């Protein structure tokens, strides 16, 4: 390696590192860590107090003022510094206190719980028979893995709290909350009693927010968010949906208020339920009474606000799926949208709602309907920035359905139409995977070269290099 090559590699390092730092800063700003003014609230108050005190003293002359200011500032620095000084959390595990650099695996035996007590007051209890690992401890929080079973967590909120819990391919990001988390047989079950968290990974993509009083389940590719307590929307779930965190734990569950579900206007909702789906008759299973009640409540509330002159039933139906989707009740939102007429919605909705409609179908495990909604978006709004998301999603859907040729076409389109889009690198990688599945060596080599040119250190760089190396050796692509 000569000096120039080394310099080029180092330049990429600095560039990538600066970009990662900028992204981190931006994320902190967005998350409110910078809190607008980049100052701790205590400092605001103390500075204001100091300034208020300092003004009258100015009349006494410069020296006393300067001394007072200096002393005040020193005191302030000490106070702020000691108040905000961060120490790595410590944890009490039974009678022992493991050190941050030697964190243990956690296995609760079959008959008793395994409680972890953290120095900030947070607690995490692995329920009997559960296992996992404490991966990291730092001043902002901890990172734990739930390998199997159930845990109950109570994370104390502070300004910079950041806890992460991993369960299978999912990640729960926590800033201060009380929840139960279960991971069994590829099924994620999260019940949130206080605060809010964001869960991401696998089918959840960049993240789904879950709020207090909600329960998130992900099983067999179907995502559900429903009110905690299960009073409203359990009907469409599989029987295992009743295996909630609380029954598994057998522990006294914290008292929670279920989300308010209005129960008015049941007849109107029933009428809506009975309307045949113009697109997919017979596809929609009859919702339970609880679902009808929920839908009716939404309808009742929305109906009263509906625009004058519009057909009340039509407007309410249109809004019903949106309200349900906003709550994360994706299967119910899907049914509501189907009742409104899927094709009609695909023709009428604006780009943003169309994308939401497609996501509802995707989360509810209806890829065909998702495909139609994404296609509607791409066809009707080809120049909208959301069309890029739709094109990528169409590629992904095709790939998941075992249609690598179609997937390659969509990913190729993404890379060509949005070369600097946020998903361009991923699209290039997926294009490579699709061409490998297609067993088209020319296309595979072209995709590998294009990927390496774009992302020499990307997630698929190893695969791309392997493909090109095999081509050089004369062996077939993987």
């Amino acid at each position, binding site marked *: 390696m000569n000096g120039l090559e080394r310099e080029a590699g180092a330049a990429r390092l600095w560039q*990538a590192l600066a970009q990662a730092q900028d992204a981190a800063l931006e994320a902190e700003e967005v998350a409110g860590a910078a809190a607008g003014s980049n100052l701790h609230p205590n400092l605001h108050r103390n500075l204001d107090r100091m300034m208020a005190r300092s003004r009258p003293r100015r009349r006494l002359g410069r020296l006393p003022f300067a001394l007072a200011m200096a002393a005040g500032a020193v005191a302030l620095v000490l106070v702020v510094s000691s108040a905000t000084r961060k120490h790595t959390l410590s944890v009490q595990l039974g009678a022992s206190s493991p050190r941050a650099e030697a964190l243990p695996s956690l296995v609760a035996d079959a008959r008793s719980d395994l409680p972890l007590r953290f120095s900030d007051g947070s607690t995490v209890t692995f329920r009997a028979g559960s296992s996992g690992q404490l991966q990291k401890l730092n001043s902002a929080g901890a990172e734990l893995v739930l390998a199997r079973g159930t845990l109950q967590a109570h994370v104390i909120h502070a300004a910079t709290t950041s806890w992460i819990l991993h369960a299978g391919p999912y990640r729960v990001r926590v800033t201060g909350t009380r929840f139960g988390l279960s991971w069994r047989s590829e099924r994620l079950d999260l019940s949130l009693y206080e605060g809010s968290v964001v869960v991401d990974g696998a089918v959840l993509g960049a993240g789904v927010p879950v709020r207090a009083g909600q329960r998130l389940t992900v099983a067999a590719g179907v995502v559900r968010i429903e009110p905690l307590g299960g009073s409203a929307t359990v009907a469409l779930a599989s029987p295992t949906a009743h295996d909630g965190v609380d029954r598994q734990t057998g522990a006294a569950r914290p008292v929670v208020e279920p989300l308010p579900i209005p129960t008015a206007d049941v007849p109107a909702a029933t009428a809506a339920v009975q309307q045949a789906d113009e697109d997919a008759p017979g596809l929609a299973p009859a919702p339970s009474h609880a679902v009808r009640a929920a839908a009716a409540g939404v309808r009742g509330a929305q109906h009263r606000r509906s625009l004058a002159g519009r057909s009340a039933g039509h407007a309410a139906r249109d809004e019903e799926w949106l309200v349900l989707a906003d709550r994360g009740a994706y299967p119910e939102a899907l049914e509501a949208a189907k009742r409104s007429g899927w094709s009609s919605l695909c023709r009428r909705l604006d780009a943003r709602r169309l994308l939401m409609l497609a996501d509802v179908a995707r989360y509810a495990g209806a890829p065909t309907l998702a495909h139609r909604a994404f296609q509607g978006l791409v066809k009707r709004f080809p120049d909208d920035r959301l069309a890029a998301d739709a094109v990528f999603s169409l590629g992904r859907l095709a790939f998941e359905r075992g249609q690598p040729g179609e997937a390659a076409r969509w990913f190729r389109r993404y890379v060509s139409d949005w070369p600097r889009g946020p998903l361009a690198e991923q699209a290039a990688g997926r294009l490579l995977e699709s061409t490998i599945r297609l067993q088209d060596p020319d296309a595979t080599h072209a995709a590998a070269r294009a990927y390496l040119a774009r992302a020499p250190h990307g997630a698929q760089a190893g695969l791309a290099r392997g493909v090109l190396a095999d081509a050089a050796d004369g062996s077939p692509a993987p």
Partner: protein
Amino acid sequence: MDRVLRLVPAAAPSEGGRDQADDARLVAALKAREPGAVEALMRRYGSHLRRVLTRVLGSDDTETPDVLQEVAVIAWQSIGRLSDPLALKAWLTQIAVFTARGLIRRRHRQRWLAFFEEVPERSVPWASPEMQEAARAVYRIFDRMPVDERIPFALRMLDGLELEATAEACGMSLATVRRRLVRAERRFHKMARQCDALLPWLDELAGERK
């Protein structure tokens, strides 16, 4: 005599479009100890200062918020010494650099005395694991470099500062900063070659061999 409250200029949407008149008003408000002046200062330059501190200390550093508070206090305390209001940003940058330098030196002493625990790392979930590992490796090397080489090197490489701006931020002459940058680069590359996490970045051939 009580002062009349005056409005302090609002934050500019971007640093590039900052207006010199606003800086002059902001400095005047700080000197007059007007309520809200420090907030206005940090609204205007907080992001810039965070970036400078992040370049010098790394994204993982859990003490960055504390250092930022120190910068705010020092700026407020010593604003009287700033004679040219138009130099406000450069002056704040210098304070940030010097405060960070103080922290790094303190840590070096603490490490040597071994009285204190290691400063904990903060996870940065928005970067890829490889990038996080590379970032940690870079800052581990920085920690082994002399502070007066590390800071100009970080500002020059990560923030892309011109030589003159790097020298100004570090309070060094142009010749000194140039000399230290050359030394820093040599030192960094020597240590980086011993570090697995950085090899793919420094050596294309390493990637090909994998």
